[in-house]
């Protein structure tokens, strides 16, 4: 049996349609994971009544069960209570809930590491809890949590391949389809692996770049920087 490069080249356009879906699922799930993570972490730290125990239960549930089981549960289980979601929507929900649970733990650690002294400085200036979290704890804690959040983010991207299990037309599923008719396992799975490697590698490169830009210990005020404020699309007037 010989290695068929022509087959890979021939199948690339088809794989690219799957890649597009994988990128869409990943992007949507990462944004939602980020939001769930920040909100959940703040709720946990503030010990918000009712919500805080719910968050604890949710995180435990997600972390202690396999993601594939969660995906099956959402896809096949929810229709029983009258909620029929498409594969794509189920995929985004499942990945976001999974990534969000891990992100909560990532951010909780980071937010808690922000010195109590800084909170007190904020409160002493007359700021309320919302201001203190929004402008002090979250921006600083986010930077601390970012490296662990990027790990979670990369896992979310890789785990999107499990959605092949419910027939979402993402990268892994297109590869499986192709194999089913061609039987060219080695060619297809090798290509699949290389594509995932490239996606995650690019992602980790991007995260490393963001991490550098976020690090206030490295930046000098003379250099242009990528600030958290900028990310939040909100700018202070430049002094002077």
């Amino acid at each position: 049996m010989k290695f068929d490069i022509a087959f890979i080249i021939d199948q690339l356009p088809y794989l690219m349609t799957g890649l597009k879906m994988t990128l869409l699922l990943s992007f949507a799930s990462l944004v939602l994971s980020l939001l769930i993570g920040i909100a959940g972490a703040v709720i946990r730290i503030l010990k918000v009544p009712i919500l805080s125990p719910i968050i604890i239960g949710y995180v435990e549930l997600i972390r202690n069960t396999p993601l594939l089981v969660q995906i099956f549960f959402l896809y096949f289980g929810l229709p029983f209570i009258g909620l029929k979601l498409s594969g794509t929507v189920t995929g985004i929900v499942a990945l976001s809930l999974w990534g969000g649970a891990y992100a909560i733990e990532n951010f909780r650690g980071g937010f808690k590491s922000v010195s109590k002294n800084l909170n007190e400085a904020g409160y002493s200036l007359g700021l309320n809890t919302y201001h203190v979290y929004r402008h002090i704890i979250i921006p600083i804690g986010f930077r601390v949590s970012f490296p662990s959040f990027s790990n979670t983010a990369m896992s979310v991207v890789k785990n999107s391949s499990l959605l092949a299990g419910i027939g979402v037309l993402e990268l892994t599923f297109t590869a499986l389809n192709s194999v089913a008719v061609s039987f060219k396992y080695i060619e297809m799975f090798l290509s699949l692996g290389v594509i995932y490697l490239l996606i995650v590698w690019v992602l980790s490169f991007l995260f490393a770049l963001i991490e550098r830009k976020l690090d206030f210990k490295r930046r000098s005020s003379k250099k242009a920087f990528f600030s958290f404020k900028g990310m939040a699309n909100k700018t202070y007037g430049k002094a002077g």
Partner: protein
Amino acid sequence: MTKTKMKIENVHKSFDQSSVLRGITTSISEKEATVIIGPSGSGKSTLLRCLNRLESINEGTIYLDDQSFMDIPIQKLRTRVGMVFQSFNLFPHLSVMKNLLLAPTKLQTSKSKDELMELGYSLLDKVGMKEKAESYPEELSGGQQQRVAIARALMMEPEVMLFDEVTSALDPERVNDVLETMKDLAKSGMTMVIVTHEMGFAREVGDKIIFMDQGVIVEEGTPEEVFGNSKEDRTKAFLRNVLK
């Protein structure tokens, strides 16, 4: 007789089982510098933190301009009573100017952004940090950070300023810069309450000295009375130890 700015009546405070303040009664006069001295663990920092409600009190009452603390919304109170800490506590992710602007831009609507910036520059100028407006806290020395922290607290235009051992974490050579800034502030008529271990400074700047030990006020009076002619043995022993 100067006007009383803050009145502290029979204040008790305990953490769990340990009683930290045990019946503090005194007053803070307007436009005066009141300096609280005493050994570690005497409750002086706790008393200071009660004055802007960073700590709640278990018993007693504190008045600001004859209004009970409980009748003043907590955030409003804190803009009227500013505080500077031992560890500076500048926000590390914000430039000096943004440290100054954060709270007033979130809280005040009466001043425009430009007016606040102007106020910021004038306060930085006052503490000798104007050229560092665009720097980040980590680029500054401890003394510089502390002067920025003073300017940041002044941005809220407080009526009273609290200083909690603000020179304790500083390089000895930098202590003076901060003390000079505080002297200027005292001269300008700011009502100040200062917890410090700098006895020379206390004597020079203080209009009133309060000596605390074990959660009570042992002695209070003018610097001459407390430093030059203390009545209590405990005060004498403390001063002998710190002044030798």
